């Protein structure tokens, strides 16, 4: 029998929510522990084994000089590196500091901001090392993560949707919240994968699964402006979970 796949899970600047999505997958996690060797997963186990690893799952954004060195080390010792969640793929909510004065934030919060050693920006993993695959979401969907691992184990390509949230919304039978209630919704320009969680409860999509490649947010913004959204509100809409994703950053800046 071939050696089991060696899996490592890493955390950078993040809330641990994506790792929890893995921990919360219940029985599947037990199955996973049998199917692969979990070599490093600090949130779940104290045994931390050295590389090389076959698959590294990286949660969190890069926010310190030490992070840069660490992500390089991980990349060098991983056959495949998958960035998981809005922080690792787009800088996360903490990337709001990229368009603000990070020093002023630190001074407002900490009595001794000088002891902090953080970069001016929060950036996605792909800004620093090559990434083999990105899993979207804040947090990621555990089903998608399992899909990636099972696909890897069976030597096939993972099936990840490249379609807007609207597809999942309509398959689930939810009427469009934008049309039915005038609720601002980023669904048409956001990558599917969550199962349309927010429209299911009558809320607009906040775009936590990141911009859909090729979508044109300007078309949506124009409609939202017609519905009464002010420029500042439009900027705020695109500046949330995936604020630093280029499509969002650009669209937010356009309305500033």
């Amino acid at each position: 029998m071939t050696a089991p796949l060696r899996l490592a899970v890493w955390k950078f600047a993040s809330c641990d929510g994506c790792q929890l999505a893995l921990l919360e997958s219940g029985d599947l996690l037990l199955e996973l522990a049998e199917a692969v060797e979990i070599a490093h997963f600090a949130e779940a186990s104290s045994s931390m084994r050295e590389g090389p690893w076959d698959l590294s799952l990286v949660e969190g954004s890069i926010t310190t000089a030490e992070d840069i060195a660490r992500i390089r080390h991980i990349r060098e010792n991983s056959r495949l590196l998958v960035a998981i969640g809005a922080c690792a793929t787009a800088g996360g909510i903490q990337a709001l500091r990229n368009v603000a004065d990070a020093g002023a934030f630190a001074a407002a919060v900490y009595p001794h901001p000088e002891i902090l050693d953080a970069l001016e920006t929060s950036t996605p993993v792909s800004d620093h090392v090559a990434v083999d695959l990105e899993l979207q979401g804040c947090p990621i969907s555990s089903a998608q993560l399992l899909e990636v691992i099972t696909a890897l184990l069976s030597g096939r390509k993972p099936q990840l949707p490249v379609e807007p949230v609207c597809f999942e919304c309509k398959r689930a039978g939810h009427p469009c919240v934008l049309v039915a209630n005038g609720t601002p919704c980023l669904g048409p320009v956001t990558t599917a994968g969550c199962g349309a969680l927010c429209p299911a409860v009558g809320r607009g999509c906040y775009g936590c699964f990141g911009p859909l490649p090729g979508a044109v947010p300007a078309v949506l913004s124009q409609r939202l402006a017609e519905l009464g959204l002010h420029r500042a509100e439009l900027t705020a809409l695109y500046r949330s979970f995936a604020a630093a994703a280029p499509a969002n950053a650009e669209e937010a800046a356009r309305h500033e």
Partner: protein
Amino acid sequence: MAFQAHAIIDSPAPLVAALKDAGWKVIAPVERDGALVLAAIQSAEELPRGRVDRASPGEVRIEDGRPGRWFDHTLPASGWKRWLHPPRHLLWRANRGRDGFELKTPPPETEDLAFLGIRPCDLAAIARLDAVLGPDGSADTEYMRRRRHMLSVVVQCARAADTCFCTGPGTGPRAEHGFDLALTELEIGLLVEVGSERGAGILERLPSREARETDIEEAHAISRKTAGMQRRRLPPSAAAAIAQAPDHPEWDQLAARCLACGNCTLVCPTCFCTDVEDTTDLSGDHAERWQVWDSCFATGFSFVHEGPVRTSVRSRYRQWLTHKLATWYDQYGTSGCIGCGRCIAWCPVGIDLTAAAEAIARPASPSPAPTGG
């Protein structure tokens, strides 16, 4: 025809009860979160009585209408296709055994579905789907099985929404055949038309009285009034024009406004496209194949070797309009559009396919003559 029996019933309540007694699961429009959606109902109490929808491009609101009226609203947010051609459907499971793998088709869950309150255009949409998925089409087993277990109680429309245009394609506002029962809401009650033996059997169980000639006349007058409320129309030349105008400059205008969100295809009662998704589990011993709704607005829809063919929004919008209004004729001998107007009302940016068709059918203005030099 054999089934011309007309009767008057006072309310749909005994009808819902009789259908349920006879073992039918009754699917009807209900109001939920500010929209009309289709759901299984237990009693007529759940119908959106006294409520009406106001639909315009990109905006639909439900509000109070004439109190007590059962069916003054128009269409639910999406077509009835989800009950016949479900959004996700397991095609088979495979289990690895000692000698290769074994395929298992899931046992069909057979439910008898009564579509209560389906409108004439949506009934026509099912006939269009029959041509695509039925025995003369791709013979989709699941579709055909569900179709055999379906009964229809049409409601003849007493109001048209601003987005309705069934009179053009002739699919409404009155259905003449193809239903089991049809109701028209009159001042004195509901006129019942019988369209099948099965329908006659159900009517027999209801407290009813005979309809007078004037009741039938009133029903026809209602249909004429409803037809008169419609403002939109597809130009008759649309099919030919669209098929011949792949380079019309209007496509650029449309593409500049379109989100490529696919809502139009997903709410359209005749769009049928699906994709297949394969899954495996961690052990690698179990696999499943699912059929899921797809849309020509997805980039992956036109994926051939090395990538999608239709990358631009322009090419995808053109595919949608061309298939619906033109090439559908080549495939199935009819238009793919039955004039329900859902793609207009439920388009988040309010793109109007009748206006789009009209713009394409208009000859492109000649490009300005070269000015020397």
